[in-house]
């Protein structure tokens, strides 16, 4: 093998300019492939990061309205979730459902010292946070013990905290203080990053406390986490059955699918995955085609080189070179060109990915509703690097194969007669 490399280095030195121009095409192709995959990966990582709750298997069920008249109930009647719906959910679907949270909501007036405002009060249990997480700034969330002991504790947004203790005061000092909601005092246990798209400032209290205080309130939604429904089909089937059971329990038309509105993270997730896979495939295709043009260039140059070296191959054959040894010489030369320049391209690509990661990868876009990454971890994985290496070697073999076969087929006498 060492001898072959010596041979090849000898011939490559003959045509330095041509070799490097050809190599540039390959390096560029690989650079594009890596840079595209890195950039695409960065965009997708950002997308996943911005929707990170989507990883959890949860469904949130809201009331809707009937779409058909049935059993004396008119079309267009608003449907409600009741206490027993939450209990039913917990009891009847034990094989797939892990935990259920009945969420309540109503607006009320919150006040601290001389500040007061109309706010939205959420009665929730910890399962809620599995599906709709809150970013804690300080303190803690509502926990199981709060639920069990019907504690009068409250988890508020940073917008509310800033209103109660405006700058220059430290708004986080609100934790541990008591604020008044309606006519009851609640102890503030934590401050979260508020969602600025909400019309009202939001505050969370334990669902059990909520039921005590606002007895008879309408349930806002049921949230549950579940497992075992991995395909879109299984999820659709479960949701259909869930709606049917709800309709039967409430006396609505069994096949009415507008009575409940279900937001399913798995289906969203599957759809996002599908889109991401399509993007990823597109990037590979674009990158590979860019690389292909480089490979065609190598193949072209190898054809010319073989043409030029016919006489030399004739001499080699007269001295006892087998066709296979000629083929090996040409193919290995082709692999050396593609692999060497390919790696230069790959290194440049990886460096550019790192640069992207350390510049725009660090930028956070604050669009009010949410703080978003445009770009995140735009680095290529080891798997991609290995994949690209395999692609390069295969490309080298392909680029060299036809020229090599041509070189090996030439009869020694014809090659020797060829004028230099």
């Amino acid at each position, binding site marked *: 093998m060492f001898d072959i490399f010596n041979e090849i280095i000898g011939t490559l030195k003959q045509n330095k300019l041509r070799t490097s121009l050809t190599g540039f095409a390959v390096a560029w192709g690989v650079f594009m492939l890596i840079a595209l995959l890195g950039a695409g990966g960065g965009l997708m990582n950002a997308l996943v990061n911005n929707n990170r709750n989507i990883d959890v298997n949860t469904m949130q069920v809201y009331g809707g309205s009937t779409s058909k008249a049935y059993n004396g109930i008119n079309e267009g009647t608003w449907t409600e979730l009741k206490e027993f719906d939450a209990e039913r959910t917990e009891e009847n679907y034990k094989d797939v459902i892990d935990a259920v949270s009945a969420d309540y909501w109503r607006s009320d007036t919150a006040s601290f010292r001389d500040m007061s405002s109309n706010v939205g009060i959420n009665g929730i249990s910890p399962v809620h946070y599995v599906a709709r997480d809150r970013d804690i700034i300080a303190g803690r969330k509502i926990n199981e013990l709060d639920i069990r002991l019907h504690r009068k504790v409250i988890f508020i947004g940073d917008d509310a905290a800033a209103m109660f203790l405006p700058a220059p005061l430290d708004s986080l000092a609100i934790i541990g203080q008591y604020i008044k909601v309606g006519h009851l005092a609640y102890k503030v246990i934590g401050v979260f990053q508020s969602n600025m798209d909400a019309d009202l400032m939001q505050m969370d209290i334990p669902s059990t406390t909520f039921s005590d205080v606002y007895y008879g309130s309408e349930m806002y939604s049921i949230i549950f986490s579940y497992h075992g429904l991995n395909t879109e089909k299984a999820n659709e089937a479960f949701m259909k059955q869930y709606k049917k059971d709800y309709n039967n329990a409430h006396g609505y038309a069994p096949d009415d699918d507008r009575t409940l509105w279900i937001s399913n993270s798995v289906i969203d997730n599957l759809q996002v995955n599908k889109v991401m896979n399509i993007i990823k495939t597109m990037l590979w295709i674009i990158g590979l085609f860019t690389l292909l043009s480089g490979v065609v260039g190598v193949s072209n140059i190898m054809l010319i080189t073989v043409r030029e070296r016919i006489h030399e191959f004739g001499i*080699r*054959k007269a*001295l006892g070179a087998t*066709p*296979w*040894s000629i083929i090996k010489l040409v193919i290995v030369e082709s692999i050396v060109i593609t692999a060497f320049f390919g790696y230069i391209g790959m290194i440049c690509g990886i460096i550019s990915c790192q640069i992207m990661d350390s510049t725009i990868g660090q930028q956070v876009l604050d669009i009010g509703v949410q703080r978003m990454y445009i770009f995140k971890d735009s680095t290529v994985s080891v798997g991609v690097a290995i994949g690209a290496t395999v692609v390069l070697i295969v490309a080298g073999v392909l680029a060299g194969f036809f020229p090599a076969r041509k070189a*090996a087929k030439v009869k020694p*006498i014809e090659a020797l007669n060829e004028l230099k």
Partner: protein
Amino acid sequence: MMIELKDVNKTYFGAQPLHVLKGINLEIGKGEFVSIMGASGSGKSTLLNILGILDNYDTGEYWLDGRLIKGLSEREAARYRNHTIGFIFQSFNLINFKTAVENVELPLFYRGIGRRERHHQAMEYLDKMGLTDWAEHFPNEMSGGQKQRVAIARALITHPRIILADEPTGALDSKTSLEVMELLKRVNKEEDVTMIVVTHESGVANETNKIIHIKDGIIGKVEDNVDHNASPFGENSIMK
């Protein structure tokens, strides 16, 4: 017999089929120093190519060292060329981007001999040709005579049974030609290798021990030339 040809025919099929060899019968013994003489177009180069398994023939039989050379695969042919035959060409056919010693090493490379051993043997043969100082030079830095001596070293390094020389002096002046012929004579004697020289120069042919005349694809006269007086110019003179 080292070489035995029985009614060998060869036709080139082009726009006009060309019957080049029309039933060649030839016997060359072991250790002989033979020249094949003929005008251009007489078929002498074709004959040499067939002897060197660089080209194939249509009908007849070619026996080389007791083996029938017919319908060989490329691989077998390459093996014969490497082990049995040494070539010397008019235009030297050295590889330009390789040094003298690398050129001499090449046949051993195709025999799968290790780097160090190759180099050692190649240096030995360059020394025999008086080219030790030129080992690291490239062909374009050498004179015609030096290049041909490198080519002879390359032909000898595999210890071939026969050496085929195609107009070995064709590109050389008369003085160098004579030196090269002396060298071939010496090699023929010392290495006991069958030497076949194709030429159209009577002076070159005169240096050999047997002259085979070929004309229009048929073997004509075969002269014994042990006294080397076939040339009108006498021994040891090559007229250019």
